[in-house]
């Protein structure tokens, strides 16, 4: 009978120390990497959105200054001859109608073409990004129909079918926006931006943004009435 002696491993202090050192290194490296990733994502995100926030605030204040100048001029005219200048009123009325989607509008801008089957939230995010980039008027559609967006436009449907204010749209989808082509293009195409995300999530889609000197958007097709809201007294 062969007796097999079970060999108890002798404690090797070198190995134990190495094990402890490796553990410590592992812990430190992982901690640092986590910290680095967190720092990168936090600073990357906040620097980008900080810049966006400041740009937004500056633009909002500039728009307010423009409106103040206009109001001051009209007020001075009203005080001067106590008559309402009809031309000023008509200009203001038409400007509001253009903003509200009730006049056909044109101007420089971009066309976003989506060869894919977006979900409603993806279209919503694109519209949000265009507004963020200072788009002054937007329409969504396909080669047959373009639907102008108004303040209360809702985007519904499902993947591959998009409902804009009750109007059914199939692809290929186009979003046309009037505004600074350069700013809109840069906002949409920035690294890590919305288009990069869409292209990454849907590698089979083709999403292109084309700047244009002149884009024309139609009048909003539905009635805009108020059934529940009243003027605040």
């Amino acid at each position: 009978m062969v007796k097999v002696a079970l060999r108890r491993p002798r404690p090797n202090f070198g190995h134990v120390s190495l094990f402890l050192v490796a553990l410590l290194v592992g812990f430190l490296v992982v901690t640092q990497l986590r910290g680095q990733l967190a720092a990168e994502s936090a600073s990357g995100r906040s620097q980008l959105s900080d810049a966006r926030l400041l740009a937004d605030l500056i633009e909002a204040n500039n728009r307010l200054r423009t409106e103040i100048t206009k109001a001051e001029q009209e007020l001075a005219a009203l005080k001067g001859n106590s008559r309402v200048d009809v031309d000023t009123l008509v200009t203001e009325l038409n400007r509001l109608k253009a903003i509200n989607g009730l006049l056909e509008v044109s101007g420089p801008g971009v066309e976003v073409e989506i060869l894919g089957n977006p979900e409603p939230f993806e279209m919503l995010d694109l519209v949000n990004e265009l507004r963020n980039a200072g788009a002054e008027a937007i329409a969504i559609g396909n080669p047959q129909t373009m639907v102008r967006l108004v303040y209360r436009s809702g985007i519904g449907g499902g993947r591959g079918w998009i409902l804009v204010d009750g109007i059914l749209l199939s692809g290929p989808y186009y979003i046309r926006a009037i505004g600074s082509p350069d700013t809109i293009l840069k906002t949409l195409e920035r690294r890590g931006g919305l288009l990069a995300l869409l292209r990454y999530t849907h590698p089979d889609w083709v999403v292109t943004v084309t700047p244009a000197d002149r884009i024309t958007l139609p009048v909003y097709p539905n009635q805009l009435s108020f059934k529940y809201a009243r003027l605040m007294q």
Partner: protein
Amino acid sequence: MSLGFFGRPPVLLALSLIGLALATGYRLSTQSLETARDAGDVSAVAAQLEAEQRRLQNRLGELQAERDRLRSRAQGPQEGLSGLLAELISQQVLAGTVGLTGPGVVVVLDDSPRRPLRGEDPTLYLVLDSHLRDVVNLLWQGGAEAVAINGERLVVSSSIYAAGGTIVVNAARLAPPYEIVAIGPPELETLLKAPDRLTQLKARVQNYGLQFTVRRVPEVTVPPYKGGFATEHLRW
């Protein structure tokens, strides 16, 4: 001179790695400090711009009120003016520069009171800009006529996006809880509560304790938009 244990190649490698890790850590903490200082600057600049914005909004509000008062007083002798002024008001209502009141819903969204577990993504416990966009979009789909978030009226140019831990609407930084008020049909409440709607948000409510309440109200007030509209590129 012998280095003994510390002289062995694996131990030397391990020690170098520790050194590297510690050095990286030092560099990162310096960077974090710089980032924090930058963030402080941004916050201070943003606060200044916001104060400027409030001043400009107040000034514009005063001028517009005075202008409207003079316009309505001058109305008498001028022919066709009353029709024009009425049309102007209806366009201002659509543009959102007039406060409105009526029946509707109040939706409140708030961050989760729970703390994220170790290693979990903390944003799972926060109200995101996309949640607010989804709620607002559903309100419009349900026939809402006017909507505001924390007092910011949503107009045709409004976007909802995240910046530095807050959500920005109309260049105003909003903080949770987010109260969305909407004037519209009573069915809005049912629509928002429907299990097949706002599924992503409702999953966060279920799994991470995000707060989401909807209640129908007989009367709600939606304040006017106080900003301006950009029309530099627009021709009509």
